[in-house]
């Protein structure tokens, strides 16, 4: 059987495209390039952004609750006297009623984990070496849901009890200790304790590897003179971009100072936003260029196919169906271009993931294609194809069959 199986519009649209081989090939190339640029850029930027955010948040709580700052209150103002007011020095204090705030935080929607932390300055001493460190008293089961310490452990496990301590690899190097050795820790207030190193971590940040010393909450409380208290409460949220909202709610509910990572890293966030804006700008221009390309090719095709359009009209094709034929050509070009564009973007991602690498040789991004990005780019290409075909299609539909045949 040799009869064409396609419906009229598809049949004619496909034949017209096939007949204008060179034009079709060029415009397909254009759409492919456009879609590939959009998908590749979006994917690259999304991945780089999430890598950066992962790195920033890898050693940081999404939301942190701290005690209110201490301020001077004047009993009454006396117009006859002047006063010099010095800002108060902020001492290490506990969060008032912290158990209640932990409970409050846990009940907030969007909160995944809550971990009270006792933290303060101290010195780690061994022999004649003395290093300034940050003492962190944590409940490991809670804290590992704030910072993924388990994945950072180089030796030992992220568990503390009694006078055990977990220190970073840099500090261990500086003090010349390893698992099983002892380190003398003296808090700023003068209290001290001999700690046994039971684990080493590497967070991927030398500064933190040199400064963080984990102990039990109880030990940190006694060393820092905060009996029963905690200095801050760390919180992990489901959607990191909801962090400021959660922080605002908690601040209103607790009356404490509550900061989200978004405020502490506002510059980074602004940079990421600017990057997204420029990405959108590039995408818009690419879409416009692709649309103009499709449109101009189809306009030329309408002129070239004038006679055929006239013949089809004479044989009983309505002007609406002629319009359909040209809209379909736009859609087909958009659709096929989207498929090949997504394919090209995938290939580019494979190539660039081997080129872009971090200092330690790991790829900066995974060469994966996000289905959402690919589908939306394909959808845009299809819509742009149809819209771009609108003007040529209307022109074809309005063509006077008699004039068209005579042409």
């Amino acid at each position, binding site marked *: 059987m*040799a009869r064409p199986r396609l419906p*009229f519009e598809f049949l004619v649209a496909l034949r017209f495209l096939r007949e204008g081989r060179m034009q079709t090939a060029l415009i397909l190339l254009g759409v492919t390039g456009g879609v590939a640029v959009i998908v590749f850029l979006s994917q690259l930027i999304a991945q780089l952004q999430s890598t950066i955010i992962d790195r920033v948040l890898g050693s940081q709580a999404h939301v942190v609750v701290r005690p209110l700052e201490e301020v001077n209150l004047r009993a009454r103002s006396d117009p006859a006297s002047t006063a010099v007011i010095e800002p108060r020095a902020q001492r290490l204090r506990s969060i008032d009623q912290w158990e209640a705030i932990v409970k409050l935080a846990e009940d907030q929607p969007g909160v995944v984990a809550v971990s009270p932390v006792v933290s303060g300055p101290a010195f780690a001493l061994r022999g004649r070496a003395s290093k300034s460190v940050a003492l962190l008293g944590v409940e490991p089961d809670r804290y590992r849901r704030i910072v993924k310490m388990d994945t950072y452990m180089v030796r030992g496990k992220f568990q503390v009890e009694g006078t055990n301590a977990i220190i970073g690899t840099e500090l261990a190097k500086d003090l010349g200790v390893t698992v099983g050795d002892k380190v003398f820790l003296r808090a700023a207030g003068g209290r001290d304790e001999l700690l046994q190193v039971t684990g080493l971590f590497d967070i991927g940040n030398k500064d933190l590897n040199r400064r963080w010393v984990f102990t039990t909450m109880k030990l940190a409380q006694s060393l820092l003179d905060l009996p029963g208290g905690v200095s801050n409460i760390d919180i992990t949220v489901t959607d990191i971009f909801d962090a400021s909202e959660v922080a605002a709610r908690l601040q209103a509910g607790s009356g404490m100072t509550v900061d989200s990572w978004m405020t502490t890293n506002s510059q980074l966030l602004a940079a990421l936003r600017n990057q997204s804006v420029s990405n959108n700008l590039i995408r818009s221009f690419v879409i416009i260029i692709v649309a103009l390309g499709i449109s101009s090719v189809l306009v030329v095709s309408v002129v070239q196919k004038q006679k055929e359009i006239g*013949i089809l009209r004479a*044989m009983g*094709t309505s002007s609406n169906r002629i319009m359909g034929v040209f809209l379909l050509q736009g859609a087909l070009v958009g659709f096929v271009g989207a498929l090949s564009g997504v394919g090209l973007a995938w290939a580019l991602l494979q190539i660039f993931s081997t080129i872009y690498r971090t200092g330690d040789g790991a790829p900066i991004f995974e060469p994966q294609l996000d289905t959402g990005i690919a589908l939306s780019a394909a959808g845009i290409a299809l819509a742009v194809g149809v819209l771009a075909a609108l003007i040529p299609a209307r022109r074809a539909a309005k063509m006077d069959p008699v004039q068209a045949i005579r042409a």
Partner: protein
Amino acid sequence: MTDAAGKPAIISMRGLRKSYGVGTPVETEVLHGIDADLAEGEFCALIGPSGSGKSTLLNLIGLLEPPTAGELSVAGQSTTGLNEQALTVLRGRHIGFVFQFHHLLPAFTALENVMMPAIIAHGVATAEDEAVAHDLLARVGLSSHEYKKAGQLSGGQQQRVAIARALSLSPRLILADEPTGNLDTHTADDIFALLREFNRERGSACLIVTHDPRLAARCDRRIELVDGRLAASTSVAEPA
């Protein structure tokens, strides 16, 4: 409406006028009130000198252009006031065209060209449409050329395909605008004979615009246009 012989009319024209550039200073009337009928199954030549309005009249009858004034009925249906969609349907259902320059669709094979009116009418080609197309191409002697594109056929072959295409939906009226205009005498005779054959066999009325007095003489009737007016309507006593 019936003609003198009592057959119903496939085409009926009353006071048909056509002007171009209506409302502009260069308004020109090409047809000045044509009154004529074409009976079902009639084989009629439309003759006249160049510029007499033959092609315009054919375009009006073919519903490709609307008349400026007057009444035109196709297959008993008045076309006055019909919208483009309705005219398209009427044209597709009752009228087949054969143009001077064959006007095949170059992107399609001979077989597909013959099937095209059916594809347009039915949305997609059916097995029956294909059988009809095979049969028609066999009748015009092109069975072995079914899968050739239009450009691979000679002028005469292309015109045969065009005739087969015009017949694919068995229209009641075939309009042919100088179908033999650019063919040599021998081929022209063949094409003409083919039209005549289909006319006799299927009863499709034919209106053929021609400059060739030899061919015109072989029609049942001749309608002659001079300067946009009906000059004569002569019945030929002994059709060839």
